[in-house]
């Protein structure tokens, strides 16, 4: 009887702190665990007793990488509770702000966190010595995403301009138009990104995921929609907790989410793409086809290509929004608190982010529930590891360990979010 262990104590190039532990016994994986030791921060507890208007700024602090996602899901849930709908130019500005976050986060992950895996470097700085043009392109793309967030949101990390009902101040058409030149460059650079990542070599590995993403008629999902899955789920956001459960497992400070009916599921770029290919703009669809992607991609290692396709879409969509923008007279819609519950879900760069709040009649939060994308993907990540290691059990341990780390990074996991972290440990007993 032989056994071995693959261990990575601190998983690098992920947002937050976690480790990987895989135990192999008699040539089979006995156990694969993504261990999350990021310290818990208890957001849902201290949100109790806070005012509705504070929720966007407080929940943004769950994650410095995707604060806009938290602000948007919070606003949606609160507006749902108080019976308010935000339309027109304010909705468009929210979508533009979110495009900024997608561009920043996707460019960061593609060029600085994920590409080094495929090319055999430890980081983007070393990658830059051999691929200076690519890294510079990635940095400029990232900077343009940040520029959108800075203009619309006030700053790139924890924007200050988002309020329930809209914004504190809206930009003028002229201010937004100043982003156009950079965004036109970004669209070309993102097409270049798709071509570049399509030339990488990918392990042969596919899984039959249940993909879960938002779907909203007439647009690629970002700010709202119904929750849909590749196995027939089609529900309103308010029905989320009837279909999904969170479990607390001993090795993780992040709660594991599963679908009650079928278990693990996958959220993020692969899921959005599989369920919403038709809603991508023609230039993004064309980029996907020329990169050799089918309408559904089940190889998680190719998520880097799908992320690049979404980068194209986000640049393209940002340009469309700026083009049609007319500055609204009022920067927000009035909101009147009432005793109620509200539900919100938006597409963070890593996948669906669910918020639910219950309020008293003064708009104070009685209780809150937040389910970030990484905790929803945890089980899918562990299942990927299990299948991948079983299929590659003969691989030398060093190489296997690197590919396991890469398999985790496929999800661009954000551990700070998931605990509201991540380490890799593979053990052979």
């Amino acid at each position, binding site marked *: 009887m032989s056994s071995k262990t693959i261990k990575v104590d601190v998983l690098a190039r992920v947002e937050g702190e976690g480790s990987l532990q895989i135990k192999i016994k008699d040539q089979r994986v006995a156990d694969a665990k993504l261990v999350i030791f990021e*310290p818990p921060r*208890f957001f849902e*507890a201290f949100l109790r007793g806070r005012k509705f208007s504070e929720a966007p700024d407080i929940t943004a602090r769950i*994650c*410095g990488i995707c604060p806009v996602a938290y602000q948007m899901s919070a606003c949606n849930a609160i507006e749902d509770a108080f019976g308010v709908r935000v339309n027109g130019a304010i909705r468009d500005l929210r979508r533009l702000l979110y495009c900024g976050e997608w561009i920043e986060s996707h460019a960061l992950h593609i060029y600085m966190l994920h590409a080094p895996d495929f090319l055999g470097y430890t*980081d983007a*700085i070393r990658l830059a010595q051999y691929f200076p043009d690519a890294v510079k392109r990635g940095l400029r793309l990232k900077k343009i995403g940040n520029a959108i967030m800075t203009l619309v949101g*006030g700053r790139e990390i924890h924007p200050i301009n988002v309020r329930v009902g809209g914004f504190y101040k809206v930009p003028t058409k002229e201010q937004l138009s100043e982003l156009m030149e950079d965004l036109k460059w970004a669209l070309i650079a993102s097409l270049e990104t798709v071509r570049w990542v399509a030339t990488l070599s990918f392990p042969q590995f596919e899984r039959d995921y249940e993909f879960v993403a938002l779907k909203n008629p007439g647009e690629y999902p970002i700010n709202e929609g119904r929750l849909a899955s590749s196995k027939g789920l089609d529900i309103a956001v308010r029905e989320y907790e009837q279909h999904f459960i969170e479990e607390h497992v001993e090795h993780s400070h992040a709660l594991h989410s599963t679908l009650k009916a079928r278990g693990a599921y996958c959220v993020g770029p692969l899921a959005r793409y599989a369920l919403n290919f038709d809603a991508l703009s023609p230039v993004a669809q064309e980029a996907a086809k020329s990169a050799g992607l089918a309408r559904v991609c089940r190889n998680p290692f190719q998520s880097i290509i799908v992320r690049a396709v979404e980068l194209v879409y986000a640049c393209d969509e940002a340009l469309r929004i700026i083009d049609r923008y007319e500055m609204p007279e009022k920067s927000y819609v009035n909101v009147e608190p009432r005793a109620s519950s509200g539900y919100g879900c938006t597409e963070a760069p890593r996948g669906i982010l669910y918020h639910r709040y219950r309020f008293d009649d003064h708009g104070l939060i009685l209780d809150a529930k937040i389910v970030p994308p990484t905790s929803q993907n945890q089980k899918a990540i562990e299942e990927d590891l299990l299948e991948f290691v079983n299929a590659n059990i003969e691989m030398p341990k060093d190489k296997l360990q690197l590919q396991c780390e890469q398999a985790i990074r496929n999800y661009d996991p954000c551990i700070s979010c998931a605990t509201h972290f991540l380490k890799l440990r593979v053990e052979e007993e």
Partner: protein
Amino acid sequence: MAGHPKPKLAVWKFASCDGCQLSLLDCEDELLAVAGAIEIANFPEASSAVMKGPYDVSLVEGSVTTPHDEERIHAIRRTSNVLITIGACATAGGIQALRNFRDVREMTSIVYARPDYIETLTKSTPIKDHVFVDFELRGCPISKGLLVEVLSAFLHGRKPNIPNYGACVECKRRGTVCVMVASGLPCMGPITQAGCGALCPAYARGCFGCFGPKDTPNTTALSAVWKDLGVGEQDLVRAYRTFNAYAEPFRRESEAHEQ
């Protein structure tokens, strides 16, 4: 300086959102130049290459909230020539220091089904409560321009040029009309340290204190003005209890309004 080794930089994370260390990667124009001048020796969020200490400069993000982290910060101090804390979590305990005002066991059971799986301290505390800190860079998040300034100052052996005056000064310099005087919006600018560029008033909202208390803040006077604007006691408590809730002047003032 051929043959002179580049100074080694390490970045460490405690309880936090990752936003302040992301500020380093957000220096898109400076990043490759910075990497040319210093050795990024330990920065897990950006690189899987880890060089052993000692390090010339350590940047520490996040607050101490677990028994393990309480030990870890001492090991980091021992291996760091200069230790700089970045952000409200590291300098004041962060938003997670709201637990310091409540029963942490109750909070654990609200979030986690199995509180027995969770190891956590009753308080979230800034790094300076545990080890000597050479410099504190405030903000939630820090401003990346100030981060570059602090790094270059320490690498050149000079004092960082970081403001310790109030955010009001930045409003005046920016030419923003006072939102509290002109529009009656409650604003924390008079007691909050500058550093963000007085963003919020420029966006027609009151400052909400991301950079924490300035030197000698008159919180009592500010609370009186806020009350004149119709702000209630409970709203005052909440205003002082955000990202810098456990910074001494904010903590004291919030307790003064708690019944």
